[in-house]
């Protein structure tokens, strides 16, 4: 499902981005748009959705009066002459999820556009406000270039401003200067990300490529952090190694082959150079028994999955008493309801059943919450003690070693 204008605007508000909206009848061209908002002082934009021979897509967003030569652009992107075409109308719907005449950089908020490359006219940067369609032809959004950047960064994009009118020579000694902006297809996991920019502008041609959009420069540990956040264990391997594989030497990277069943990180064993990065929040620490009561396997399993899936703070999620109680109560209540429903199927009053469940919930919830809080506090205390002892020991040890 594509984002609606309202969802987009809500997101901008969340990001505390200033913008102004102008409503007008639907417009399909810049000229038509200019009739309604052209006098307001902001910079109109023309936006193209382009496609190359490898079926990769580009949104080029420029000031209305910037000259765009598709042939030049094509060469600069390393696609050869004539490698760029206007995309078909269907692509607008499928990829950007916007109607005809509504191409806009803001459409990149849609997941369907994740592989689309974005080129922005550097001329936007000198404008106070720029006009784009916020996913509909009936509105013009006025926003500054820096706010646009803020938005783009929030959806995981690096804004790349380019002098769209430049026409540098491209040849053997001058590699295509915008080649890095071409989509790379499947995102690759390099084993060590050192210098991700494969071609750097040589300086004197007025190009201002700010940052490459697809192969971002990022440290290995930052990449790890990102991977962990999406529930992955980064596995660093020597890709050039060629160990013997045979009867006595099992395939050393076998554990890295997908197993079909989603792996919970605490099951990832020992690949050759697999680095566990200490994401303790994902290991199941919580005791599995309440004093005198056992949690149902279903509740435990749900807990585990909850911990693996949540990227916010697993410990906080797992110790959210209210949530846990609600889950247990819901399960109990459902089971109870089903039982009672079976029994009272023949009785006259089907109303009793839900209200009985409510009463039970109310009565038990409060006690249950209390007990669970007791448990949580006790567990914390034990952990606290253990931590204190551990620190004390290591301090004493290092102290005695100093002597």
């Amino acid at each position: 499902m594509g984002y609606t204008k309202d969802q987009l605007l809500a997101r901008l508000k969340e990001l505390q981005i200033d913008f102004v909206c102008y409503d007008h009848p639907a417009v399909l061209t810049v000229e038509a748009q200019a009739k309604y908002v052209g006098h307001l002082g902001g910079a109109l934009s023309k936006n193209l959705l382009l496609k190359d021979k490898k079926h990769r897509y580009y949104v080029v967003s420029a000031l209305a009066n910037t000259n765009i030569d598709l042939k030049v652009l094509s060469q600069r992107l390393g696609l050869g002459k004539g490698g760029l075409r206007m995309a078909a109308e269907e692509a607008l719907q499928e990829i950007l999820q916007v109607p005809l005449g509504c191409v806009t950089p803001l459409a990149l908020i849609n997941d369907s556009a994740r592989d689309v490359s974005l080129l922005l006219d550097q001329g936007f940067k000198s404008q106070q406000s720029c006009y784009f369609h916020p996913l509909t032809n009936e509105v013009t959004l006025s926003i500054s270039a820096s706010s646009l950047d803020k938005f783009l960064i929030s959806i995981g994009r690096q804004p790349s401003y380019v002098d769209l009118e430049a026409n540098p020579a491209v040849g053997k000694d001058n590699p295509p200067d915008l080649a890095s902006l071409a989509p790379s297809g499947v995102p690759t996991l390099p084993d060590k990300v050192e210098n991700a920019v494969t071609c750097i502008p040589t300086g004197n041609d007025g190009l201002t490529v700010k940052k490459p959009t697809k192969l971002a420069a990022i440290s290995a540990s930052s990449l790890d952090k990102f991977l962990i956040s999406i529930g992955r264990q980064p596995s660093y391997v020597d890709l050039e190694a060629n160990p013997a594989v045979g009867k006595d030497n099992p395939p050393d990277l076998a554990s890295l082959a997908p197993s079909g069943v989603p792996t919970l990180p605490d099951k990832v064993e020992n690949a050759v150079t697999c680095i566990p990065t200490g994401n303790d929040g994902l290991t199941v620490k919580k005791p599995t028994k309440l004093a005198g009561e056992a949690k149902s396997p279903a509740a435990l399993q749900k807990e585990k999955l909850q911990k693996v899936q949540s990227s916010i703070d697993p410990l906080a999620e797992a110790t959210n008493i209210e949530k846990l109680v609600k889950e247990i109560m819901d399960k109990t209540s459902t089971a109870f309801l089903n039982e009672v429903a079976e029994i009272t199927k023949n009785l006259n009053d089907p109303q009793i059943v839900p209200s009985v469940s409510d009463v039970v919930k109310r009565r038990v919830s409060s006690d249950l919450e209390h007990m669970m809080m007791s448990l949580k506090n006790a567990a914390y205390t034990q952990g606290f003690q253990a931590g204190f002892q551990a620190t004390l020991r290591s301090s004493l040890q290092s102290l005695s070693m100093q002597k």
Partner: protein
Amino acid sequence: MAEEPKNGDAVGSGVGGREADEEQVVNPWEVTAKDGGKIDYDKLIEKFGCQRLEEPLVRRVERLTGRPAHVFLRRGVFFAHRYLQDAFKVPLVIQLTDDEKCMWKNLTVEESKRLARENAKDIIACGFDITRTFIFSDFNYVGSAFYENMVKVAKCVTFNKVVGIFGFTNEDHIGKISFPPVQAVPSFPSSFPHLFSGKDNLRCLIPCAIDQDPYFRMTRDVAPRIGYQKPALIESSFFPALQGETGKMSASDPNSAIYVTDSSKDIKNKVNRYAFSGGQDSIENHRKYGANLEVDIPVKYLGFFLEDDVELDHIRKEYGAGRMLTGEVKKRLIEVLSELVERHQRARAAVTDEMVDAFMAVRPLPHMFS
């Protein structure tokens, strides 16, 4: 909760002595109604300059927290710290004024500290969340940043002022006179650098009984002068004694209150024999006129402790109309109280000294706002 009131007749002893006998006395160390009558809250509210907890405020709390208000807030009677902690997802800091008890009740330092720890256990048993709660006792914690704030506050309050607010006299020892800043500075985040370092603009909400108001009026007066935010207060009315509003709840009279250490037998006995009833003297009269809900203690207690609004309303209606008898109401109260006390005792048993140490450890609370 109401402080244990001293003998109200003592005028010259310095505490509350400046009040004439005819007026009611409400300060941190004494609570007496006028002429052995009821506490007049309207007068108190006017005198202290606070406002009643009205519907609009309760609605606002509900809107901001996205959940129904606690029974106590709903019934405009009381507040609930734990509810506030859970609903607003904020940290809670609890101060145990063991130094105050040592000074005013003339206990030894060791005894005060021991009692403070026992108090802490009862508090913890109420179900506070250790990841969002910091408990401290004055004897243990006063020092460094906390003490710096104490001095800042002390510099802003003259001797005359403190006499005016608290009624100290020349005969009171200097410990008492210099105590008020200790109770004032927990209102300021900078007093707890291990919790709120860098967050100087945090606002503080203090739930307390209305007799503690003088401390915080002083604090609110001083705060802007030392560049701090004023704390907000939410104050409760007093819990009536078992024998009725005019009685005094006192530690020396075990029948004036239900204790958390009471057995269910004790509770049954106390309620049946001592709870002041608003019912009529004979069943016929009772059926005719109904009960006087204004003075009836069991129904008032149910107002504090019975969580089910529907049931409470039903009881009030039926009892007020005379269809329900005092015995039934008392019976229900005994049930509710027994359950509550039992739950508390169970939870209390699970609170170890290590747990108290953990609650009282000077440690960061990384999830205190989540």
